[in-house]
């Protein structure tokens, strides 16, 4: 290949790299929405009416925006937790269980301390939620770090344990015994003390304090990841466990801590789900989704779409929160069930990871063929989000 043509090829590769990194994510969303339009057409609905209803339902007016933000807050917290775990190359898909444990721990705290004033009770219940989730994240984290147990499997199993614990607690020890019911007690707590409710910060909307907390936490985690030595260790461990070990970093402790923080974020999200809810109770329909609304999985989508960066995740969470809120409006307008949003999220994930590979490959090739220098220093690629290869692990 002549020098000129190789330069042309190089420029093209650079451009492709640029296109992929900046357009891959929006492209994934647009592609998923287009497929969604095809689905709507196939089901005999008008996609333009549908998407119009979705956008109006999610973003038009202060009430809709407030609802979207409220939906987005727990999503954001889960996503931020996912960012931390993924950056350490630990794949946390136990968000559902961690949300539930956070919800339970915070509800129990509020039920146990009904007479505290808001100023003390709200921080306490939020901390309790974070602690509940942290416990549920620390277990798979430690199992992975110290016993090489695949975290995907242990987190799934802990989800299954969490759902049963939740059903047991809400139907048994924590059930509202004052219910006036002839068909047995509904598995739910009694109305939580008013002092524990997250105050509404914008009148005439649902926008509560939790939204603000979620954003502050996201910024805090960004600082933790990018401006502290702990964050540096997390990323180093995520990029190469062996190299980090060689550099003398406490690899196992870092992985466990990353999962603990990840769980704590999800647990905090669970607390927001309870204390920011309209009913101000914790209710179960016997499944995890009944409480979480699949936020534990949706949070993964949000984090991926936010390029595993807590700050970008804020925007991403708002977008997907809107998608979820707008899904109901879509259902009303076209009769297409709101489940379509879940299907769309799945498609987004599939597109993002498919394009992610091409992005990584174009990065690798744009460094030029080996053994030939064009005077460009061999740049160290900025840490590519370590989208975890599920089975990949170092030796025990």
């Amino acid at each position: 290949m002549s020098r000129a043509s190789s330069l042309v090829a190089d420029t093209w590769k650079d451009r492709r790299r640029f296109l992929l990194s900046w357009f891959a994510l929006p492209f994934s969303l647009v592609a998923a929405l287009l497929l969604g339009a095809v689905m709507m057409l196939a089901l005999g609905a008008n996609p333009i009416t549908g998407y119009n209803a979705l956008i109006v339902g999610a973003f038009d007016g202060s009430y809709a925006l407030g609802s979207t933000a409220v939906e987005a807050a727990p999503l954001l917290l889960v996503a931020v937790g996912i960012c931390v775990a993924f950056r350490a190359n630990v794949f946390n898909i136990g968000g559902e269980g961690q949300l539930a444990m956070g919800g339970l721990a915070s509800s129990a705290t509020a039920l146990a301390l009904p007479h505290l004033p808001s100023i003390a009770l709200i921080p306490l219940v939020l901390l309790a939620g974070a602690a509940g989730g942290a416990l549920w994240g620390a277990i798979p984290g430690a199992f992975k770090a110290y016993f090489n147990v695949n975290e995907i499997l242990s987190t799934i199993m802990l989800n299954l344990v969490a759902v049963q614990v939740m059903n047991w607690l809400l139907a048994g020890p924590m059930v509202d015994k004052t219910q006036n019911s002839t068909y047995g007690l509904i598995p739910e707590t009694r109305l939580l003390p008013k002092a524990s409710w997250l105050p509404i910060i914008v009148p005439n909307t649902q926008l509560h304090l939790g939204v603000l907390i979620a954003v502050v936490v996201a910024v805090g985690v960004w600082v933790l990841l990018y401006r502290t030595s702990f964050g540096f260790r997390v990323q180093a461990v995520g990029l190469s466990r062996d190299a980090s070990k060689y550099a003398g970093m406490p690899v196992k402790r870092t992985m466990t801590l990353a999962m603990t923080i990840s769980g704590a974020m999800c647990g905090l999200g669970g607390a927001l789900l309870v204390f920011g809810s309209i009913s101000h109770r914790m209710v179960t329909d016997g499944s995890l989704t009944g409480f979480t609304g699949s936020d534990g999985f949706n949070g993964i989508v949000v984090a991926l779409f936010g390029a595993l960066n807590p700050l970008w995740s804020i925007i991403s969470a708002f977008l997907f929160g809107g998608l979820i809120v707008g899904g109901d409006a879509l259902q009303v307008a076209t009769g297409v069930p709101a489940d379509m949003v879940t299907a769309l999220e799945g498609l987004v994930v599939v597109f993002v990871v498919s394009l992610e590979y091409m992005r990584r490959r174009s990065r690798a090739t744009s460094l030029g063929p080996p053994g030939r220098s064009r005077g460009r220093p061999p740049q160290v690629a900025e840490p590519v989000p370590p989208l975890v290869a599920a089975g990949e692990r170092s030796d025990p």
Partner: protein
Amino acid sequence: MSHFFTYAILTATVATALGLATPFLLAALGETIGQRSGVINLGVDGIMLLSAFATYYTALQTGNLFFAILVGMGVGVVMGVVTAFISVTLKAEQGISGIGIYLFGLGFSDLLFIKLVGTPLPISSLNPINIPLLDRIPAVGNMFFKQTILVYLAFLLVPVVTFMLNRTTFGMKIRASGENPAAADSVGVNVARIRWQAVLIGCTLAGLAGASLLLFDGIFQENLTQSEGFIAVALVYFGAWRPTGVMGGSVLYGLAIAVVLSWKSLGIIPLSASDLAATAPAVITVLALLTVARRFRQPAALGKPYERGG
């Protein structure tokens, strides 16, 4: 407690356990084949949901259960093509793309269910087939030989898959692709093709698993599987990537669920604590994973896309 140890209830519990274990076993066997070739498929649960709905809808429309099962398997094949394309051809991160497939299956199956069916109607169930002579053996006959065809099929597949993996050229190629794809490639094995085939077989079995779950329950509902597909993936690890081990795990899981159900209905454990008892299989699995992780090694190239010279 004494109610439980009666002939009728014990045999009925074991018989139910085998029926409950069948979807786990089918899905986990399929996943075993895929993982031995180096591909981890976390979308099993979504595939099971889609095929369960397809089976349900076909059975409602035609009343032909065998045709319905075939359609369910067909959905598995289609999802297998998608999965293989993403995991093998596009070399995407398998753990995450699987979550995408799962979410798609979860949302899309319920979307179709609400849109096309709406009010759930039960469908007729598969008739049990009595194996002549064997079904007259006391106790054993009632437990093992009065099952539906899918149960027999699932358990017959265990020796078949074992033989296929260990004694056939195809099985060797699958294992080589999962252990050392570069070496397999160097002796002329087309790693991508082998992985495609393994994933397709795996997803077809996942489709069959969805169909068998649906026919066991006789009705579809939102999130019918309740994470059974994920459990099936865990059972592959539990069984240390061996079909017999996977069978052991599936039966254990089925037994645990059946025992809790039967104790609950007999009032041996109070209704309030039955939820806690239901955590037993998951806790056992986590503990089993602890020992498996120490004693067995997963396929060396599991979850790693293969690239020549890479």
